[in-house]
Structures are given as structure tokens and as C-alpha cells.
């Protein structure tokens, strides 16, 4: 179980440009952090840094677990639940196949009830190519749930969703924090979790 995630003097450069430097923040279990900033400020880059895809130009990210600290990107990646810009869905696979694939890939058994939670139970046998943008997003949320990871990194979690979808995201995030999870979300809208926010 993760106790906290600390960023210490974190810096990120893309090409010649410095996106941010000497960034410090701390998120504890059960908390959410909203990352705000203009387009191109480096919100997605920060999430990619935390996930371990990018190496920081300076500083480090430390994950504290029971009595242990670790700043290894590869190990940190194994606790990350990722919801990026792209949904990672294959048009040829059905909704249920897609979800089962990710559940098994992350080492869990398939769980059909997750589709009900995100309101896609009736579309289970529909190939993903027929899904609308909002439905794809809901399926991506279902995938996030079946990955059962404690550290959620969400890039624009409300994008493309209708009002009930946005309420669903808020509900799932509140439940995740309630279970002791951590959420770091790049967003332009308030998360509504009484969370702290970080301006880039």
C-alpha cells in the first residue's frame, strides 16, 4: 500500500524548452491532486514523468510504502493506473474482450460487473469501433478499475463525457480516495474532492 508520493525539486525539459523546474509536491494516500495550467504548460509531461515514461531532467519522485522509500521509475510504474488522452482500444475487439484483456494483462480475473458500473453492460458484445467518444471514455474508465492500481494518473478525466459520465468519474474518484488510493489528475475543471491543486 502506498503511503505517499513526493516530488522533490522536479524538473522537466522537452527539447530545448524547460517546462517546469524545482517542482515540489506531496500527495498522501486518500488524497487527490489536481494539476492545472494552460495548454502546453507540461501537465501531461508531469503525468508521464510520474508514470516513468519520461526521465526527469532534475530531482526525483519518491514513493513511500510501508517502511520503504523507492524512486525507481520501473517499480513505480507497477502501481500506476493510467488514463491518458488515448483510450487504448482496438476497433476489432468487443467491449467485453477489451476489458478481459486488460484485466488478465494486469494479473486479475475478468470482472463483468465493472461494465455495469460504467453503464456499458448492454454494449458488452459490441465491437469497439461502434462506440461513441463518450462510451470509449467510459470503457477506458472500466479498464482503469480492473487494473486495480493504487496510484491513478488521469489526463483530462472529464473529456468527452456527458453530465452523467462526469458524475460517474467524480463518484469513482471519490471512492478510490476513500479506499486509500492516490489520484493525480491533469484537468481544467474542478475535481470536486476537496483536493489540493498544483499550478504549472
Amino acid at each position, binding site marked *: 500500500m502506498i503511503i505517499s508520493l513526493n516530488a522533490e525539486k522536479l524538473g522537466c525539459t522537452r527539447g530545448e524548452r524547460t517546462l517546469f523546474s524545482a517542482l515540489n509536491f506531496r500527495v498522501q494516500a486518500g488524497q487527490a491532486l489536481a494539476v492545472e495550467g494552460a495548454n502546453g504548460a507540461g501537465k501531461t509531461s508531469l503525468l508521464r514523468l510520474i*508514470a516513468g*515514461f*519520461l*526521465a526527469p531532467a532534475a530531482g526525483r519522485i519518491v514513493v513511500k510504502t510501508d517502511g520503504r522509500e523507492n524512486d525507481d521509475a520501473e517499480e513505480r*510504474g*507497477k502501481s*500506476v493506473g*493510467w488514463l*491518458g*488522452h*488515448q*483510450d*487504448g*482500444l*482496438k476497433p*476489432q*475487439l468487443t467491449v467485453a*474482450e477489451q476489458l478481459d*484483456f*486488460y484485466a*488478465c*494483462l*494486469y*494479473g486479475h480475473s475478468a470482472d463483468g460487473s465493472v461494465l455495469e458500473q460504467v453503464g456499458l453492460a448492454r454494449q458488452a458484445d459490441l465491437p469497439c469501433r461502434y462506440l461513441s467518444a463518450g462510451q470509449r471514455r467510459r470503457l477506458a474508465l472500466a*479498464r482503469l478499475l480492473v487494473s486495480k492500481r493504487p496510484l491513478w494518473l488521469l489526463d483530462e478525466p472529464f473529456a468527452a463525457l456527458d453530465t452523467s459520465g462526469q458524475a460517474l468519474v467524480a463518484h469513482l474518484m471519490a471512492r478510490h480516495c476513500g479506499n486509500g488510493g492516490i489520484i493525480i489528475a491533469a484537468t481544467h475543471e474542478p475535481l470536486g474532492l476537496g483536493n489540493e491543486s498544483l499550478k504549472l
Partner: protein
Amino acid sequence: MSPFATLLVRDIRLAARSGGGAALALSFFALVATLVPLGVGADLHLLSRVAGGVLWVAAVLAALLSLDRLFQGDFEDGSLELIALSPLPLELTALAKIAAHWLSTGLPLTLLSPLLALLFNLPGPATATLFVSLLIGTPAVSAVGAIGASLTLSLKRGGLILPLIILPLLAPAVIFGAGAVALTLDGPMGIEGAGGALELLAAFAFGAVLLSPFAAAASVRLNLSN
């Protein structure tokens, strides 16, 4: 199912459903193998001489058709990031993709080859050698191809550069594979006579399958950090 088997099954399923997998490679292989006798003419002796080389080159080119999408599809739709975060190490991810590519193209090509050998008037023992050499050698094509596919995964027209990268690396496979067929054809001992070439081919394939997942994984990591 283990994460490895899950990825393997999913990739085979995708290859089967997208129409770019086995069916396309097999048709290409069959068409090239049919065109060559039409172009060369009905010189049966000449045809059986060139059969090994032509069928090997055709098999490599047919396998190339679907290689550029090995990682690219997953990279473009964001699946690769999710796979990279899964408990499956990227090296095993690459191995699963190589295995899936071989099962959906290399193996069907091998199974079809004895039928196409008929068009070249290839005698029975030489056909057997061709079959065995493709069975041993096509995994190397998928494995070496995975290195090229991982290097070009972020390029829009990566499929055009891919052959330039991997065809030179596959020269040993073609030389030993076609060489084994020629040895069988010339020698009095049947497939036994091709032993040396087949062993070298097996060694090449073994090395390629063992080492290329590491190279491909390193290259995928590099591409994800862009």
C-alpha cells in the same frame, strides 16, 4: 491466463480480424511463388534450382507485410503505454508479439510451402528440407523484424524504412535456408545432406529469438519517452 498468454492470444485475434495477418501474407506468398514460374518459363530443371531461394525470399517479404504494425498499432492508440505499465516486462511483451506474429504468418507460410514447391518441380526430399528450413527460420524473421518494428514505431511511414533495416540482417537466414534446399537437391543423401546448413540456420534463429526481445524492448522504452 497469464499476462504473456493474454497478450499472445489478443495479438493473434487482432491479426485474424484485421485482415492484415495470415490471409494477406499467405496470398502474397502464393502469388509471388506463382508469378516466378510464369516469368522464368517452363524449364523444370531451372525452376527446381531456384525454388529454394525464390520461396525463401518470398516468405521473408510476405512476413514483412504485417511486421511494421507489430508495435505501431499499439503505440498509436495508447495501448502500448498501458501494456508497458502492466506486470509483464517489455522484453516478454516483445517476445509475445514475436510469437504471435510467427503463429499468424510464419507458421501458415511454412505449412503452405510444400504446395508451392510443386509449382517449381522441387523433388520430395528437397521439399522436406524447404519445409524444415522455413519452420526453423521464420521465427528469426519475426524476431529480427521486431527490432526493426520497434525502431520505426513512431514513424508515420515506418513500413517503408523497415525493409531497409531488417532485410540485410536477414541475409544469413536466406543464405542458410536456401542453401539447405540446394544441398539436398545436389546431394545423394536427401535431407541428411543439408544438416550443416540447417544447424547454422537453427543457431541463427535461436540467437535472434533470444536476443531481439531485449533490443526491441529497449527501443520501445526509448520511443515511449518521447
